[in-house]
């Protein structure tokens, strides 16, 4: 009995220390406004206000394909991946609101694969994962000790991107063909229906962007497993309906993914090699829009220059 109390005491005190240290380590730029829970939940909140020009909304396709630091190193544009695994539209809208509140983006890029996701799909799983990922702000931000004691907090190194180096080859298969036979990924007919509940959020995001004069780009990121021609047709229609630009890299000539080398899980997600290609494309695209400008070595963006050094080393 005495020992049980001892163990409980020990763990309670540890939890208290943990929470206090978490507060110390978490990026505090926006903590007053959004609180510790949100700050550890949404990585974007670690960034200085009004420094991000382009945000990318989407699911795992986004954070494995677009590396903002690659774009910053070449063009000096500030991009951030506001993406979560198996993102559902209501959560994406939540993230969008947080992003638009703390940042003043000029371009919002949306990866439309998540439009097709059932809003009821594994909600408990996603929630648990999210909470698990975020009850550990100390673990997540522990590397800030260098900044905490000896300098400033420079924010995230990867800006939402998750770097994966290993390769697991995909199939050689024209997954975007109009007629599909023997697709190694999908059995039976393709479903390409956007659940009606999702349409509400899509509309909310796009119309809000228009109101704020933000350019919207629907950008399909290469994935053999997630994309097919049916989905492409639906998004094509949608883009015309809203009058927003739509590029699908699964069909675009400007980018050529080698599915043998550039995917980490048999054609589902890209690895670092693939991400480099997509990021290069996106950098050039942003350059051609003339909407965003380079912030390299500019005042107020020292954090990005600092972080770039670390990124280059990792």
């Amino acid at each position: 009995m005495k020992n049980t109390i001892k163990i409980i005491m020990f763990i309670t005190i540890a939890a208290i220390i943990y929470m206090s240290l978490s507060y110390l380590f978490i990026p505090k730029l926006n903590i007053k406004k959004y609180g510790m829970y949100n700050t550890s939940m949404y990585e974007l909140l670690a960034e200085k206000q009004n420094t991000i020009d382009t945000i990318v909304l989407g699911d795992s396709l986004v954070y494995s394909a677009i590396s903002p630091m690659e774009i910053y190193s070449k063009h000096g544009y500030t991009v951030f991946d506001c993406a979560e695994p198996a993102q559902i539209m209501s959560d994406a809208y939540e993230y969008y609101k947080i992003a638009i509140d703390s940042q003043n983006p000029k371009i919002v890029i949306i990866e439309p694969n998540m439009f097709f996701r059932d809003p009821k799909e594994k909600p408990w799983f996603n929630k648990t994962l999210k909470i698990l990922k975020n009850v550990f702000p100390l673990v997540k931000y522990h590397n800030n000790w260098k900044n905490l004691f000896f300098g400033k907090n420079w924010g995230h190194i990867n800006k939402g991107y998750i770097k994966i180096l290993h390769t697991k080859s995909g199939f050689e298969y024209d997954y975007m063909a109009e007629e599909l036979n023997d697709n190694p990924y999908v059995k039976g007919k393709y479903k390409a229906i956007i659940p009606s509940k999702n349409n509400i959020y899509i509309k909310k995001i796009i119309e809000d962007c228009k109101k704020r004069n933000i350019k919207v780009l629907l950008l399909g990121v290469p994935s053999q497993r997630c994309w097919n021609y049916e989905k492409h047709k639906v998004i094509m229609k949608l883009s015309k309906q809203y009058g927003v630009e739509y590029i699908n890299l699964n069909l675009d000539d400007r980018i050529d993914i080698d599915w043998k080398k550039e995917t980490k899980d048999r054609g589902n997600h890209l690895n670092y090699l693939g991400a480099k290609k997509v990021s290069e494309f996106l950098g050039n695209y942003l350059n051609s829009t003339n909407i965003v400008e380079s912030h390299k070595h500019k005042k107020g963006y020292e954090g990005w220059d600092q972080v770039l050094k670390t990124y280059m080393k990792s």
Partner: protein
Amino acid sequence: MLIFFTKFYNFFFLIITFFYNLFPKKARPILLLLVSLVFFYLMSSKLIICLFSTITSIYLSTILMGKLDEKKNELLDGKSSEEKKQIKKIYNRKKKIVLIACILLNFSFLFLFKYLKFFTINSNHLLNLLNINYQFSVLKIIAPIGISFYTLQALSYLFDVYYGKISADKNYLRVALFISFFPQIVEGPMARYSDTAEDLYKGNDITYANFTSGMQRILWGLFKKMIIADRLNILVKMVFSGYAVYSGPICFIGALGYTIMLYMNFSSTMDIVIGIGEILGVKIPENFRQPFFSKSISEFWTRWHISLGLWFRDYIYYPISLSKTMKKLTINSRKIVGNYFGPLISGTIALFAVWSLNGLWHGAGWTFIMFGMYHFVMIFTGNLFEPLIRKTFVKFNLDRENIYYRIFRSIKTSFLVIIGELIFRAPSVKVALVMLKKVFTDFNIKISEMSSLGLDILDYIILFVALVLVLIVGILREKNISIRQEIGKMNIIVRWAIFYIMIFVILIFGAYGIGYQPVGPMYADF
């Protein structure tokens, strides 16, 4: 994420500790065995058949040996000494056949999974060299996890039964658990049957005292691994992959870093394994005893990876050097070259066998063979010059136990070990030679290079402070002071403060997360 949560290993361990006491005592060994097998299956899937074959072959062979012994003793009853001799001879031969068959079976697995590729590649080279237009196809095989460890551990039990040191265990479950107990199977330590089998099977309660003490040991292991080893990993990778551009001193720092990393990584795993054992009330033997305080290379190997050294000593070195022919050789040569050099001949022959096998055990590759030969030469020369050095000291009336001389010897030994580890870590013999040449001929220190090794000044400071702590703990242990006992005597506030500091120092300064890659288990993929 917490790396120590994602590993199966720790996951299993946590489950076990939470539910262990709820199981009836008799069911506990079965639980441990089941968890061990599931763990093995998750790591190596179908190859679990190899583990089963090893367990079963060892079990049956030892039982058979036991039966042969029984029968022999029956027959011996009331026979004349001449007859006795005859019976003994017959049965000893039968026993030997069982022994050899079982060894061959288990070595064939080891050979298939670890050495076949190496031998086919080298035979192909040889065929090429001889202008023979034939090539063996190289099979790509992934070895079952821990095969090098559990095979040797299982064989030690076989030998012990063969030599009559212990009697054969009729309980299959106990033998199976001894061989497959999951914390030990990945990287050892290789225990003897008399060390762990009984305690593992007993299924004692997890007590508060055992639990806390084991957890402290685990915490210390995590400190060494996450603060030091995982951080050094960056530097080591940089130096050994980009050795061509680095100067001699940097190559040496790379080898030094690797040696420290290896020690911290390996010994921390042992801390965790022994800690888990402590929690379950099983005393798993120590595998390290402050190896860098050794006065000579041969002493080093009695303090580093102790279980492997003991295995080679007991099952290779002594059986060879004390075989009938060798004994005769020793007696005869002693008459000629004296007391010291006499046994040196048979000792050296056995030593050569030990180090050839030791090199190969570490891995199928020329660097490992070179590593083995390097240590053989070092120990041999040490033995050769020992009398001369001793005489010199006596002549000049110098004290060999003088503290400065001891420190000098430890540093010298450590230096030799570092050179050995350089060979061990180098991707090929060629690279090893290039790096060695740099270390011994190029002394251009460029401070600027230090900052290009992936670590910044703060990382070096953390490393330095952590290593000083490890050194202090080492000195205390060397003086036979049990640190955990000392901490246990302190008042609860100080004691808990120490634990909290340890936990949060690991969480904050540990080298994990973005930009760090943890060091994998050292031999797990061998």
